């Protein structure tokens, strides 16, 4: 296990370079992928229309702007479609080649997606500028402690997303119609992560489960920290919960993956 990790650490810079080269080579595609994340803007327009007649709870028009632009930034920085890639590779047998390499496939997946992060941040930078221009007064409550917590929550959100995707992608080892499950997952995510609606605005029967389910820590929690909806104390406490989820889902994902690889019978050659 220790040598495994050492090997991965040694190979990681190269894997990252390959990943970056791939992203640069397919930049047009990458841009189209980024453009598919337009839902927060539609929801922003929608909630703007709703809030025109008066604020909804703590949310007035300016707060909605800050929130949804923040959603866009966090989503672009941490987004990840690995489940789709994994299930394709499992079904068409490309995974076999990855299994033959002297390094765990999870590491190469991680490198793949980590190397896209700089490009993602570059793509998100105009939106960050927009966020600063529209909501400077709210950002992180101008509190350096919240800044640190936000950075940690962003890393946590990325990891949580990554492990959730491994978990979902590994489903393709067991069921044929994994794609349908992904669709459903996206639907649940849309509601419970605060992607479509700020969780505070939800009625109690959805807001209660949303506050404990892991989805919130993928998106709503970092965003709320960013736009100053949480006090440093609240943010710190939730950071603990977030990283607890990272650990639990991480272990679960790796277990399911391992059991899946055992029953994997490659298709094709």
């Amino acid at each position, binding site marked *: 296990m220790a040598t495994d990790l050492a090997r991965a650490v040694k190979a990681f810079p190269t894997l990252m370079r390959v990943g970056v080269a791939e992203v640069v080579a397919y930049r047009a595609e990458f841009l189209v992928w980024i453009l*598919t994340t337009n839902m927060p803007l539609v929801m922003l327009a929608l909630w703007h229309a709703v809030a025109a007649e008066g604020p909804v709870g703590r949310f007035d028009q300016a707060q909605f702007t800050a929130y949804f632009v923040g959603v866009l930034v966090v989503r672009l920085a941490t987004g990840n479609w690995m489940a789709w890639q994994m299930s394709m590779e499992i079904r068409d047998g490309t995974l076999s080649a990855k299994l033959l390499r002297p390094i765990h496939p999870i590491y190469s997946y991680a490198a793949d997606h980590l190397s896209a992060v700089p490009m993602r941040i570059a793509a998100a930078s105009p939106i960050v500028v927009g966020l600063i221009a529209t909501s400077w007064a709210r950002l992180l409550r101008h509190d350096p402690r919240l800044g640190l917590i936000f950075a940690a929550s962003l890393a946590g959100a990325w990891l949580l997303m990554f492990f959730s995707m491994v978990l979902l992608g590994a489903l393709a080892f067991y069921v044929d*119609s994994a794609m*349908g499950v992904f669709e*459903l997952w996206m639907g649940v995510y849309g509601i419970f992560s605060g992607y479509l*609606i700020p969780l505070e605005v939800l009625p109690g029967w959805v807001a209660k489960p949303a506050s404990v389910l892991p989805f919130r820590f993928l998106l709503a929690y970092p965003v709320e920290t960013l736009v100053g909806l949480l006090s440093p104390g609240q943010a710190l406490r939730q950071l603990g919960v977030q990283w607890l989820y990272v650990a639990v889902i991480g272990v679960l994902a790796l277990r399911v993956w391992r059991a899946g690889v055992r029953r994997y019978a490659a298709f094709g050659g």
Partner: protein
Amino acid sequence: MRSPVGLVARYAGLFGIQLRMSSLAAMQYRVDFVTRGLIAFLWSALTLIPLLVVFGVRQKFAGWSFGEALIVTGWFTLLRAVLEGAVSPSLTAVVEHVRKGTLDFVLLKPADAQFLVSTAKFEPWRVVDAVGALAIFGYAFAKLGRWPSFAQVLASLLFLGLAILILYSIWILVVSAAFWVVKVDNLSYLFGSLFDVGRWPIDVLRGVWRGTLILMFTVVFPVALMTTYPALALLGRLDLRTAMLALGGGIVFAIIARRVWRRALAMYTSASS
């Protein structure tokens, strides 16, 4: 040359055969059929939550009441069923054909290539979505406390035809792009994400950039024509002039798409051998 009637009969027959093939293929995977149907149902239910939340906060917004907005959602659900069940599976296969060069086999067959590729694959379990859409319509009109007149239903059916035509035309345009740039699967995701806008009455975008966005979603990427206008027709809120303009625009759109497809096909130089 064959008479027009004979031609129509022949293509209708071909259509029946293609549909039967897809159904048979789908029935082979019965468990898959049921689970995917179930998932589609749950997914549709989830997409209703934002609507419920918004109308939990406001009685009426952007000029739409809850019942009226539900009708837009109903059209969206119905069209999504058509898109995912009948339009996109076949056309996604075309992209594969172009990439691998197997489009040759389709082109060799003695029937129109656009027809053949467009009817190659159906996903019958999407019928669940269509049933869901009808349930939404029923509930919405019960909520509104009135039912549409026969003429209104007729007008909205006309718009349904138009919406399917536009949906299909846009897809043909996306697929035609495959002849130039080969990898377009993410274009189809972009399409899906823009189509999602149709879940809401188009008036919610009225405040954005003085209505530029509305113009874009009515003329350039006409989602408004696909969901908001049929709903307006069903509610009897659409005037004749707008309706005529919309119908004319949709037909022009389809003609352009057919032209582009012919152009793209002329460019095709098989990948194999």
